[in-house]
């Protein structure tokens, strides 16, 4: 990562505020949102922008998250750039419309504050909400901090609205750890963002002179071809993600590595894979262990859909053991991220041993000590000692 600021100004923001600033800089025509902890600050901050005439947009206070996504979709349908944000139960309530939006190919950008799902009721962070929306046809990005959140919202529009993609993007921030933690965030100028992100010119809009039917039935004879198109768009998105990351870096001086970022993986014997805020904690642990001479590496998975299958196939021959941190679990099997990584590894020649660590459920801390323990267990694995393939970390008993 080479993150040097070129211009703009620094402000002390939490992740939600960073998202609100990013949304403002992207000049959406329509914002339709319903507040939910821990996303609420996004709603409040944008509301403040609009009230203070610092932002011009149609700001719709809807009665539910389902309606929020419907309104965003209606806006996109007439060629407007649309933004929304939600979390957890709200995302679950949107579920039906997530399919409608991706299937209709509307390039909407949504921020999601990762929070666990009830029951038992809890407002704190894990990634079960967004990972359970895996198959809705949305591109999913996971960010590590407030700066990346701001940068990713801007990149998300460039990605979603790319002619080769035309697929909605969900930008995920870990609830509280990212959404409510304050840090210095570089806010680019409006001119810089305008130069990077041109106004939205929809390829998919209706107007009075070109009436079109939308979301119509596609019969059995035609339906599968629409799905094939979605898969092709997702496949093309892999390349576009890399392009957008490069172009963003050239404009703003911050590069993120595209689909994944490798941290000290060159000669690593064991690596951990994580998404979101846990990567920040893990960076410190990797530095500590490297000082002790341990060959540990870290892979920051930035995009969950499309999934970087080829990357993990390539990584498989380079390491002896791999740990996957999942802030989620697919009950009756294992963590969703681990499953996908194993699936990618299965088609590689040499397959390393994999331990799936289930951690950080419902906001439980993933401490540096926990992460050190994960590396210990991976080394045990490489030395032939028995380790369970699925382990809960930080469990009370």
């Amino acid at each position: 990562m080479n993150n040097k600021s070129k211009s703009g100004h620094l402000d002390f923001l939490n992740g939600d505020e960073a998202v609100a600033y990013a949304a403002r800089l992207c000049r959406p025509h329509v914002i339709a949102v319903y507040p939910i902890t821990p996303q609420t600050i996004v709603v409040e901050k944008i509301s403040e922008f609009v009230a203070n005439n610092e932002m011009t947009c149609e700001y719709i206070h809807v009665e539910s998250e389902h309606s929020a996504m419907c309104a965003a979709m209606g806006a996109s349908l007439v060629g407007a750039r649309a933004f929304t944000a939600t979390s957890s139960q709200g995302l679950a309530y949107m579920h039906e419309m997530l399919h409608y939006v991706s299937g209709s190919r509307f390039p909407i950008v949504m921020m999601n504050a990762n929070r666990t799902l009830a029951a038992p009721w809890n407002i704190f962070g894990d990634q079960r909400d967004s990972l359970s929306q895996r198959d809705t046809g949305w591109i999913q990005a996971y960010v590590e901090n407030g700066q990346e959140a701001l940068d990713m919202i801007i990149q998300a529009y460039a990605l979603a609205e790319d002619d080769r993609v035309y697929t909605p993007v969900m930008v995920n921030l870990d609830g509280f750890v990212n959404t409510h933690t304050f840090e210095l965030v570089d806010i680019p100028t409006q001119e810089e963002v305008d130069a990077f992100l041109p106004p939205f010119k929809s390829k998919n809009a209706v107007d009075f002179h070109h009436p079109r039917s939308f979301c119509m039935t596609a019969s059995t004879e035609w339906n599968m071809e629409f799905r094939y198109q979605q898969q092709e768009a997702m496949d093309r998105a892999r390349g576009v993600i890399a392009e957008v990351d490069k172009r963003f870096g050239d404009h703003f001086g911050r590069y993120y590595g595209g689909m994944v970022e490798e941290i000290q993986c060159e000669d690593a014997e064991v690596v951990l894979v994580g998404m979101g805020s846990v990567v920040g904690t893990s960076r410190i642990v990797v530095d500590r262990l490297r000082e002790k001479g341990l060959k540990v590496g870290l892979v920051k998975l930035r995009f969950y859909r499309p999934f970087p299958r080829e990357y993990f196939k390539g990584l498989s021959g380079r390491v002896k053991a791999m740990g996957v941190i999942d802030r989620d679990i697919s009950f009756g099997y294992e963590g969703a991220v681990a499953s996908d990584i194993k699936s990618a590894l299965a088609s590689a020649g040499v397959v390393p041993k994999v331990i799936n660590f289930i951690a950080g459920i419902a906001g439980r801390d993933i401490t540096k000590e926990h992460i050190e323990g994960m590396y210990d267990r991976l080394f045990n694995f490489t030395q032939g000692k028995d380790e369970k393939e699925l382990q809960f970390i930080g469990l009370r008993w």
Partner: protein
Amino acid sequence: MAKPKIVKFQFPECLEEMPLGPSAVAGILTEPNSGWRVQRPVLDHSKCSKCLLCWVLCPEGVIDKSKGELEIDMNYCKGCGLCAHECPKEAIQMVREGQDEQ
């Protein structure tokens, strides 16, 4: 009559011709809108006095008076029989679809 005419829908012939998401040009008719009609009205022009009661009452607005003699647009007539019922000259007969006119 301002109603859309039936036009042949051009189906995509390759993936590149598929629309971006399930959308298509609106306001066109690709097949008769009245395929489910059970009975059709048959107008005997020799009995018609052009009182236009049928033209006023037709719920679908499918009776055309612009050409002198009244014409019924069979692409849109749903066969309700209101015209035949109300015609003071009994100039309209309802005939079951598939049966010959008398």
